[in-house]
């Protein structure tokens, strides 16, 4: 009975949505827009979203509300937006996890490519390779030699399956063709705690979490994962400087609408996103986080779509090579 009501109702909604779509685009937005963050409030992705949402509110003349739908590595929130009405009032701001989900989760209820209409890239947070304060190697070259030599004797902390820190570690071990002992944690907070207490050896995490500790001398930084050195950590070399080529990794964030959203609405949102990213306040706040807004040319549907496709392919390979099974 219930499912019958659902089907009937879904049919009615779909029908009315089609006829209304054309008229809607012109006066969009005429009610508050919701951006779903598929993680808990207070995390880095949530922070990025709230900064962007505040700036977009001003531009669109409607409130942009942030809603946190956490769980299952971000796939619950993403699934909810994939199934939402494509009217431009429910959007998703997700990070790199959008591209790793297909490799990590069997039976995903959505397809990152076909179920979403990309709006644009938002930011790409650099990663840093760090170690406990009293870790032996002095430089990046030393570290690489040390890791190659000691392999599994080194403990490497990560924030669990699919976390940025795990992906970075996988890539690092892949590049050096070695294995370290992975020690998973429930989030980067506890992992950082143990690193500060020298309970474990190494970690790789976003600048958002590591910069203040590095600057205070609490932990050692060996490398950044960007093509060039970053402004807040001018003394930390890039991986390429240490002789590891093609090791580039950033935790990129993208803004999406459900597939089927009217093109005029997407265009409007892309423009609004670009304006928000050019906003001085947003720029300064991002700089505090150790990151920067992407160029206007990357805050476009095409750039995001290209990034997403490339990353899905890359991570499928890295994750399979590491022997991590989809759940």
């Amino acid at each position, binding site marked *: 009975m*219930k499912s019958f*009501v659902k089907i009937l*109702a879904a049919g009615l*909604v779909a029908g*009315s949505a089609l006829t209304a779509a054309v008229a809607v685009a012109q006066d969009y937005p005429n009610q508050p827009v*919701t951006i779903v963050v598929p993680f808990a409030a207070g995390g880095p992705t949530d922070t990025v979203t709230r900064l962007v949402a505040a700036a977009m509110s001003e531009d669109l003349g409607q409130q942009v*509300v942030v*809603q946190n739908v956490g769980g299952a590595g971000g796939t619950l929130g993403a699934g909810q937006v994939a199934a939402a*009405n494509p009217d431009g009032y429910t959007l998703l701001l997700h990070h790199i996890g959008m591209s790793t989900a297909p490799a990590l989760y069997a039976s995903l209820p959505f397809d990152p490519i076909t179920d979403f209409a990309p709006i644009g890239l938002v930011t790409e947070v650099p990663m840093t390779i760090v170690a406990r304060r009293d870790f032996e190697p002095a430089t990046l070259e030393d570290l690489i030699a040390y890791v190659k030599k000691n392999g599994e004797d080194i403990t490497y902390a990560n924030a669990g399956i699919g976390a940025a820190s795990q992906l970075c570690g996988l890539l690092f071990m892949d590049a050096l063709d070695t294995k370290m002992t992975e020690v998973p944690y429930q989030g980067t907070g506890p992992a950082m705690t143990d690193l500060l207490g020298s309970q474990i050896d190494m970690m790789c995490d976003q600048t958002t979490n590591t910069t203040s500790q590095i600057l205070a001398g609490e932990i050692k930084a060996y490398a950044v994962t960007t093509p060039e050195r970053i402004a807040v950590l001018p003394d930390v070399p890039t991986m390429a400087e240490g002789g590891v080529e093609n090791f580039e990794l950033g935790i990129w964030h993208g803004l999406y609408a459900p597939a089927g959203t009217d093109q005029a609405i997407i265009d409007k949102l892309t423009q609004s996103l670009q304006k928000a990213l050019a906003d001085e306040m947003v720029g300064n706040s991002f700089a505090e986080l150790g990151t920067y807004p992407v160029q206007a040319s990357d805050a476009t549907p095409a750039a995001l779509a290209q990034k997403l496709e490339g990353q899905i392919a890359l991570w499928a390979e890295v994750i399979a090579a590491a022997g991590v099974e989809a759940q």
Partner: protein
Amino acid sequence: MAVNASRNDFASGAIFVALGGYFALEAMKYDFGTPFRMGPGFMPVVLGGVLVALGVAVAAKGIGKPDAEAPPAWPWRGIVLVLGTILFFAATIRGLGFIPVVLISGLATALSSSRNSLLSSLVISVGLCVLCMLIFVVGLGLLVPWVGPWLRF
């Protein structure tokens, strides 16, 4: 019942055995691992076994010690209506929307007390609906449609 044993101890022991058994058996499907690298099955199998043992011990302790008091009556009306309401709430909050779900849930729960008449239950449910709307939707900004997509035409 003429059995010379504690019904309460038997029942709680049985619940422990059943749940412990479920966890242990289900966890057998997961990787048990080694002490160095304990798998996801390690702790649940061990703890499930412990729970089964405790359940047996609880039941055994009840032998020869019948309960002092007669068991209270089962609140069938309450169980069906209160739990039914919660399940109804979960199943329909997204589809029917805030107002209808809260009205119906309030009415059904109020009716589970034999001290409420139909009229008083109606008053309670309308009052609660207004209160909840003010607190959660207006005050705390809960993002739920007033009337859900199943009822929109």
